[in-house]
């Protein structure tokens, strides 16, 4: 991404008329808005946790930071919406879904490992369950808007 070519390709792809709805318009715009909010929420929460009291729950707080990074990369790749960033988005959202399911399960079975809540603890119920729904909706939207997809 350092040479900026994915972004240029994205711009070129946007200039061409496409049968598939573009990734960042329509429902995609709501998706991106929620991803931006979660990037801010997870980022600021993990920054506070790590700078304030990292030693109290190193595993939970490291996962908090990992979640924040994934939300950030997912948001940026959804906004760029190019061919490469689309692949990055699929990987990010897949990781996000796996992460929320894994952390959710572990936090229920071994609560001692997570003395402090993270975005993904208990499947994100502390955040109205949005963390578990968001990657599913995102992956469905990525599939719906993939180049060459037929419009319904």
């Amino acid at each position, binding site marked *: 991404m350092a040479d900026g070519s994915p972004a240029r390709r994205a711009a070129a792809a946007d200039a061409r008329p496409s049968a598939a709805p573009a990734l960042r*318009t*329509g*429902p995609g*715009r*709501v998706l*991106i*808005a*929620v991803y*931006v*909010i979660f990037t*801010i929420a997870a980022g*600021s929460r993990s920054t*506070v946790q790590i700078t304030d009291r990292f030693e109290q729950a190193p595993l939970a707080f490291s996962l908090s930071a990992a979640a924040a990074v994934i939300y950030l990369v997912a948001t940026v790749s959804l906004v760029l919406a190019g061919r490469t960033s689309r692949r990055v988005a699929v990987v990010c959202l897949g990781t996000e879904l796996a992460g929320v399911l894994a952390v959710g399960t572990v936090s229920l079975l071994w609560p001692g490992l997570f003395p402090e*809540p993270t975005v993904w603890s208990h499947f994100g119920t*502390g955040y*109205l369950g949005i963390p578990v729904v968001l990657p599913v909706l995102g992956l469905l939207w990525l599939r719906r808007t993939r180049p060459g997809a037929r419009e319904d």
Partner: protein
Amino acid sequence: MIGWYTTALITASLLVAGWSGIQWARGRAMGWSDLGALTVLEVALLAQLVVSVVLTIAGEGPAEPATFWSYLVTLLFFPPAAGWWGLMERSKWGPAVIVAVTLVMSVMVVRLGQVWEGVGG
């Protein structure tokens, strides 16, 4: 004590969400009414900022100052950001952006009240 005012802010956020939700259901793109509602919300948040600053100077500040101020300042950016992002979308999904953002705002204002009082997680 800012309890009644945060309740008013939560109600206001939910009303804006409801209004834009109606526009979304009717298939309308974002219009002046959505922008007006967001402006009212922004002014209400600025009033919250002024009240909080005055109370803090008077020695009755928030129980968790760092969290309270970061929440409040973040909240101030939400209505303009939602308006800008929603205006770029000339379809019913513009108002849908406002619904999503104002619903999140109502939850954040609940937390804002909690960190002022020093209760809750």
